[in-house]
């Protein structure tokens, strides 16, 4: 199993550490040709405007869209924005997932937070695993899911923080910043890892 992590900017190294710990080969992706032979791709946290601009400058938008048609992609925070069809703002997006996101939905950095969330679908990964500790940094929200996209996890007040559509996964928090690797294991399952 070989998973790529888009390494244009952001916390890609943190994702690679988790993948390696789970026994999976992880590679940095900066060019379209590096997508060949990957079983899945993670788009990390970072600044979505920077990642989008670099993807345009280095002709990665179309190759990433083509890749996503067949293979699983998971976006965390900036990556979730980049996967979406609509971010209420003019910036380059892959437009794969039928979700609307609101950037910086909780406010500026002083409002960044961590919280335990009940995420029932994680029972499938680890029965009795308990609440999930999620870290939100100038985080976006998934304002709405459309079409085949489905909400996977919500805050207590019902606001959507994770969604899935076919083989695409979006989380607005950062599983790569905590020791709990259930989301990475979930994504690896989506990519066919047992």
């Amino acid at each position, binding site marked *: 199993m070989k998973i790529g992590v888009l390494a244009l900017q952001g916390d890609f190294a943190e994702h690679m550490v988790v993948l390696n710990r789970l026994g999976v080969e992880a590679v940095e992706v900066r060019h379209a040709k590096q997508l060949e032979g990957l079983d899945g791709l993670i788009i990390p946290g*970072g600044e979505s405007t920077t990642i989008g601009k670099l993807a345009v400058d280095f002709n990665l938008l179309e190759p990433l869209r083509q890749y996503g048609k067949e293979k699983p992609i998971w976006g965390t925070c*900036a990556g979730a924005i980049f996967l979406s069809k609509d971010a209420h703002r003019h910036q380059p997006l892959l437009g794969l997932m039928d979700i609307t996101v609101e950037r910086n939905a909780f406010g500026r950095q002083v409002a960044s937070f961590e919280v335990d969330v009940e995420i029932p679908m994680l029972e499938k990964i680890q029965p009795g695993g308990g609440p999930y500790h999620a870290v939100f940094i100038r985080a976006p929200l998934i304002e709405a899911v459309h079409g085949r996209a489905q909400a996977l996890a919500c805050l207590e007040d019902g606001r959507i923080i994770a969604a899935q559509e076919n083989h695409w996964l979006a989380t607005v928090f950062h599983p790569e910043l905590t020791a709990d690797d259930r989301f990475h294991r979930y994504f690896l399952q989506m990519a066919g890892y047992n």
Partner: protein
Amino acid sequence: MEAQVATFAVKKGLAQMLKGGVIMDVVTAEHARIAEDAGAVAVMALERVPADIRAHGGVARMSDPELILQIMDAVSIPVMAKCRIGHFVEAQILEAIGVDYIDESEVLTPADEAHHINKHPFKVPFVCGCRNLGEALRRVGEGAAMIRTKGEAGTGDVVEAVRHARSVLGEIRRLQGMAEEELMAYAKEIGAPYELVVETRQLGRMPVVNFAAGGIATPADAALMMQLGVDGVFVGSGIFKSGDPAKRAAAIVKATTHYKDPYILAEVSRNLGDPMVGRQISSIPEAELIAQRGW
């Protein structure tokens, strides 16, 4: 569990999101938009870039909050702002207006010649400068959630940035080879908190994100710092004191991503127009050197 704000994890976490990116000094909302369009991961809002602070002389203080607020309105990326070393009231003001990061910066005139700000009680995270590992870990001990090697701001001469990055990264490599019983003496020698020395040795890197700053003026400079092993770069005067800021800014962003690829570095370095004129550090009288501020 209730949501917890301002934990060290979220303070340090924002810096982790900036990794592999370029943070640019801007003095107007217009500059900030140019920086964002060029792919900056954050902007540093200030009244004068360091080269002008040098030229202007006098006391350099926190910028007018009005200016910072205009810049915060102009862009969607994080906005940082500087306060003077030890000036915790300037920091309180910057927190009150909601900046995303405070740089307790030697580029401004220090307000306290013995103490830095106790950064733990603040909700907003801090970045601080350092010349060596001891200074870096003292700042982390005071609550800094991000470190930048100082270099020599406003010169366009990268030599001090290299010296400080080599010092910090070299000391971490040296630490890796030490026996456990040597760590307390080493902590004493460099004046760093023991626990942070232990943590740094265990991690094999600084416990917080470490950018380079001070004198970076070209795409090659940015890539040099990245190859030396820092997590990202600050570019101050180097962009808006150059002939074509938008083009140079975009080129430095690309160079920071593709820092290991000399073909791309060659491509992005072409036709950038005039770099900032700069000032060779060896020609500056010692009393005018900024990097030695901070304790």
